[in-house]
């Protein structure tokens, strides 16, 4: 996309997104605009210079000179960060959503802080041999060997999961303080590529979450709320252990990922979207695997704050 001409009057470049055109083409009344939001994807607030020597008129000079891209028509490529309406003007701190790396089963693996999802029984490991979770004797490997690796074949049998915590990540406010009620995240939206996998509960029953909708790019959206999805969203106590947050804590969301049937049974998407690499199995032997890297996005529905988590689906190719 080119930049918009910003030499004259302020103009608006408005387009329908692909999802909008799709709904319009359906002709069933699903194309109905009911609300709006403001986005600031291009803005880097780090350029706000509160110490500019020329005074406050120059604090936001760089921000106001930010060139703006033309509109993307892909609905998932824009409005990544939205402006927030909060009636109070005296806020100095706002909550964030952080990936939890402190609780052992939720910790990702490696320096890239990635979660790895094993897509079939061979990759998980079974009686036929060791995989990335199970040893050759069909017993789970030691935790350090399977850190950050999720059982995407049978999620209920895996211990590891993904967790994100909401709260203030500052030590300037006591961690024992409660987070303000109007900033407490009570609902989360999880988005992931539906071709690759689906969200399931982190609890032992391994129940699948209900998809809210799947858009034209195969991105599935799941809505979880504190009130109705206790298996996913939980309130954290002020003294909750195993959180990376330094300050007051709000809620947390935890879930596992189940590999799609296509990833479990076929290598088509691995060949199309992925590549190969070598990883070490729990028995210490290097193994060539096919992989697909993707992102799982967690967005707080209240504050709009979002977190993109890297996830890698892996599969041991058949010989």
């Amino acid at each position, binding site marked *: 996309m080119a930049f*918009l001409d*910003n030499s004259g009057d*302020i*103009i*608006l470049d*408005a*387009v*329908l*997104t692909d*999802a*909008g055109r799709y709904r319009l083409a359906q002709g069933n009344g699903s*194309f*109905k*605009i*009911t*609300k*709006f*939001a*403001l*986005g*600031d994807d291009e*803005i880097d*607030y*780090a350029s*706000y210079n*509160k110490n500019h020597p020329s005074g406050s008129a120059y*604090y*936001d000079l760089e*921000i*106001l000179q930010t060139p*703006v891209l*033309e*509109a*993307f028509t892909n*609905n998932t490529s*824009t*409005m990544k*960060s*939205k*402006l*927030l*309406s*909060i009636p109070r*003007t005296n*806020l*100095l*701190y*706002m909550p*964030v959503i952080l990936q939890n790396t402190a609780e052992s089963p939720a910790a990702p693996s490696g320096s890239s802080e990635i979660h790895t999802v094993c897509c079939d029984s061979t990759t998980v490991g079974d009686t036929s041999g060791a995989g990335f979770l199970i040893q050759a004797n069909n017993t789970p490997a030691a935790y350090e060997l399977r850190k950050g690796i999720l059982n995407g074949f049978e999620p209920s049998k895996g211990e590891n999961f993904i967790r994100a915590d909401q709260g*203030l*990540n*500052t030590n300037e406010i006591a961690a024992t303080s409660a987070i303000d009620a*109007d900033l407490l995240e009570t609902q989360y939206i999880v988005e992931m590529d539906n071709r690759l996998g689906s969200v399931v509960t982190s609890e032992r029953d391994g129940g699948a979450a209900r998809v809210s*909708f799947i*858009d034209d790019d195969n991105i599935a959206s799941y809505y979880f709320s504190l009130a109705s999805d206790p298996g996913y969203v939980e309130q954290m106590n002020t003294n909750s252990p195993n959180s990376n947050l330094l*300050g007051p804590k709000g809620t947390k969301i935890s879930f596992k990922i189940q590999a799609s049937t296509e990833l479990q049974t076929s290598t088509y998407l691995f060949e199309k979207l992925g590549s190969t690499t070598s990883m070490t199995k729990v028995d210490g032997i290097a193994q060539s695997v096919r992989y697909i890297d993707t992102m799982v996005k967690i967005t707080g529905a*209240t*504050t*709009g*704050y979002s977190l993109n988590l890297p996830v890698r689906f892996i599969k041991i190719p058949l010989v």
Partner: protein
Amino acid sequence: MATTFKTFLNNDITSTKTLLHEAIPLTGTLASGTYNTAGATTDTYDGTNIKNYAHGMFQSVYDYPYLSSSANHIYDLTVGYASASVLSGTEATTNMQAKKINMYNQMAQVLVGYDTTGSIRNFDQDGNLVETGAGSGTKLKDCFFINFARLLAKDEIKKGSFTIKIGTGSYAAPFADTSGGDGILTISDSGKENDYRVNSPAGEYAILSATAGYNKEISPAPACGLIFYQAGIVVLSSSIFLSGNTSALPGILSSSDVPFRPNGTYVTASLTGSAISASCNYLRNRLYDITFNNTTELNSTIHFCRVNHNDYNYSSNPTYLSASKIRVKNNTLDSPIAYFTTVGLYSSDNELLAVAKLSEPLKKDPTNEMTIRVRLDY
């Protein structure tokens, strides 16, 4: 409670219709000069931007050699005459009489429809569709048809904007006059924005009239064709190449028939003695230029995004915070500030249906309010 969406109220959304006009100048060199490969004086004149078909029923004109992917189709040309024309029955089978009658009938049934007996009407010079008897008027039975591509005509040709200039000189010098004039006959629908007909099944149409070339018309502004605005089709009578005195067919010129073909014979000879594509070639050779304005109907929905003083003063942008502290504030007394570049329009289930980008970031703080007007055109 922090919120990211603001719901539109009833008075925040309105719809409008706008007519957008573009000027379309089609210079005659496109039709007969720029891509000429054979030379204008030959009977087989053709160009790389002219596409003929094996069926031979019409000819397409492009703005660039048509084998190139850059070429745009601009119009089609064809000729035809009615089975009731005096020309009918005078033509050898090899010269496509049946196809010319077919072309006339096809255009007539689409543009002027059928009479009460189910027979195809003929084009009428003044738009009176009475076929016979008193008031039936003059029928246009021998016609050239110019069908403009929708790429140019869009939703319709703007009424009163159409002009076509046609040379009436010799074949080799169609735009010159041996007596010193320019030899160009100007045919237009000038003033017809308030004088058009609505009795066509293909929408509104008006009567084209000619104004002076050197070969003066026999009466002031004689009717010599029809323009169908929504269909984007111009019907030109062969009378524009004939005199009122000497021709077997009625003509509009006061002096003599135009030597339409390279061999100096007239348009009647072309209609009965040449293939459709050859007659189109001869017409193209005489096209000086065509101009009109097209019309696009834009139906718009305008969304007024009203941002109040206490709306959208914070951001969820990851760079907005540093260690959870708002970067643009030093203390709690400072006003929050946010900057936005994008307006997203959403469905009730939070799917982004449309997006509007500002050309530069706008500052939002509690001291200002604004209304952003987002127009979506359909």
